[in-house]
């Protein structure tokens, strides 16, 4: 709890002192990507269903904001609810269809689903404008989520992040959470003890999908542009996973720490190498990929358990084993 309080407290105090748009933008993105990673963590970290198709749900949320805003002038708050409902339905469908799949089979299935969305999003030109993408309309005001002041965005994203942190904390400490952990570690054993494993797994994906979609709506509203090759890409799903895995799969604070580390690293590398030449923008992604390999090798459970072992404290989460122990 203490590190989380420090982190979120820091995020809450910063806008009172700092007005620098670049810095605030970084903070907003850390909170946002941390929240998406936390939403992903609900399915992957706590329920053991590593998905590389979560960009589907993010994209549903983002497209809801863009399409409903441009076509029918609907408030993004309503679009957020609609997007979350659509994502929940998709989460149920995908969770139900891939319920029996484990390990690499599950990952491959989620990738296939997200490719279907990518193709539909880019080819159904009449509805989605295809690969050109859609600008998200900006109308000033809170109800239309047109916030000119970046400090308002910080507090909005902070609320989202704290909400997701609490949901994860619930999964760590509640009876439901223990049941999920049992399913994750050994589904057959959990089934034999009367845990409704199959149903819990589907529910976890549906909840995770709805939360991811909410983040997608906010992201679309903040960035102001949606295109299928970004929001439905496997790369984006990897990005969600990366933050959670780096920070610590199945830990409440992990996704936020991972997102902070990755966003800072990315911003630094972009600033360092981005200006040299157009072809060199890939350098930070090379380092990104290599970093992922190294983390998997030397700290496969992620930063949170690793830091905890460094400080010699055992009071981490009870759900830390997901990445390293379970197989």
């Amino acid at each position: 709890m203490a590190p989380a309080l420090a982190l979120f407290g820091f995020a809450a105090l910063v806008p009172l002192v700092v007005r620098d748009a670049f810095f605030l933008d970084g903070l907003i993105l850390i909170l946002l990507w941390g929240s998406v990673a936390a939403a992903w963590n609900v399915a992957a970290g706590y329920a053991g269903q590593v998905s590389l198709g979560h960009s589907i749900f993010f994209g549903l949320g983002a497209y809801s904001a863009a399409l409903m805003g441009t076509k029918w002038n609907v408030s993004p708050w309503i679009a957020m609810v609609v997007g979350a409902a659509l994502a929940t339905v998709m989460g149920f469908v995908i969770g139900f269809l891939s319920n029996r799949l484990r390990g690499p089979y599950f990952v491959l299935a989620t990738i296939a689903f997200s490719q279907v969305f990518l193709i539909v999003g880019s080819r159904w030109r009449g509805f989605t404008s295809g690969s050109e993408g859609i600008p998200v309309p900006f109308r000033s005001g809170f109800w239309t989520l047109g916030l000119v002041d970046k400090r308002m965005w910080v507090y909005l994203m902070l609320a989202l992040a704290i909400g997701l942190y609490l949901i994860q904390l619930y999964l760590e400490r509640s009876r439901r959470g223990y049941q999920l952990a049992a399913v994750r570690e050994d589904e057959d054993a959990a089934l034999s003890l009367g845990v409704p494993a199959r149903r819990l797994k589907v529910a976890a994906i549906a909840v995770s999908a709805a939360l991811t979609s909410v983040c997608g709506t906010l992201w679309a509203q903040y960035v102001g542009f949606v295109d299928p090759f970004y929001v439905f890409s496997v790369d984006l799903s990897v990005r969600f996973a990366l933050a959670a895995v780096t920070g610590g799969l199945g830990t409440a604070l992990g996704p936020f720490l991972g997102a902070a580390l990755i966003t800072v690293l990315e911003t630094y590398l972009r600033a360092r190498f981005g200006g040299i030449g157009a072809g060199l923008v890939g350098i930070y992604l090379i380092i990104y990929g290599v970093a992922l390999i190294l983390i998997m090798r030397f700290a496969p459970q992620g930063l949170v358990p690793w830091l905890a072992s460094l400080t010699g404290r055992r009071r981490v989460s009870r759900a830390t084993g997901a990445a390293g122990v379970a197989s």
Partner: protein
Amino acid sequence: MHAVPQLAVSTLLLGGIYALIAVGLTLIFGVMRVVNFAHGEFLMLAMYLAFWSFALLGLDPYVTLVLALPVIFAGGWLSYRLVMGPVIQASHNVQIFTTVGLSIALQNLALVLWTADAQFIRTPYYAVVVRLGGAAFNLAQAVAFLVAVLATAALFAFLRWSYTGKVMRATAQDRQAASLMGIDTGRVYSLTWAVGVTCVGVAGVLLAPVYPVYPTAGLQFVLIAYVAVVLGGLGDMAGAVIASLIVATVEVVGSYVIGTAWKEVLYLLLFIAILLVRPAGLFGQRGAENIGV
């Protein structure tokens, strides 16, 4: 009905190449229980190898193929030693993200080295069209098909009859028992990985005269390979070949009937349907998807 011979030939030519890509992927999975998410990047690197040999040294891709075999094999072996070997005992998740990391790194390495622009190899024969019966096809594509069939056959013979091949199959069946019988499974894994990478590398060089090469070129082929490998039964070599032909049929006939724009959706839906109805694939053991192997 006049289109049938053409469709059949197109299917066969495409399926042969898909099979070589899928066989490499399924070999690695069968022996090591690792889905290589960087498989497509090895394909892409081999295509660039062919491109640069052509652009800088004027080497014909088919000459490159022979010369580059040891290079591709060594590259595969090295990537195992550096990246996969250290995590071979770790959990599925760790291995999945390790190969995903490798894929991101290699893709962007290509982007930095060679930019995102598509490159073409213009050999004297790239546009030569052969007519046979009612069908017309590209000569380079036909050569690619023939070499792919030869390479696949060679791999099958190697696994069937060579001592090393038998050792690989034994490890695939039961790695614990194999290591108790004195098999150095670490060596088997590095060899398997290198052989799997060589398969997809050969496919890459063969594809280079026919398809453009760019940093994400591997993705379109590797997705098909995933479909074929799951359809055939993950780890099942013969299944992968047959499934590649099925996927190619769906793609070619689908493009003919409903147009090329939606053909990917067809085989992805096929993929999802297989996962739903028979996740263990056509020939795989039932329940494999359940154990998570």
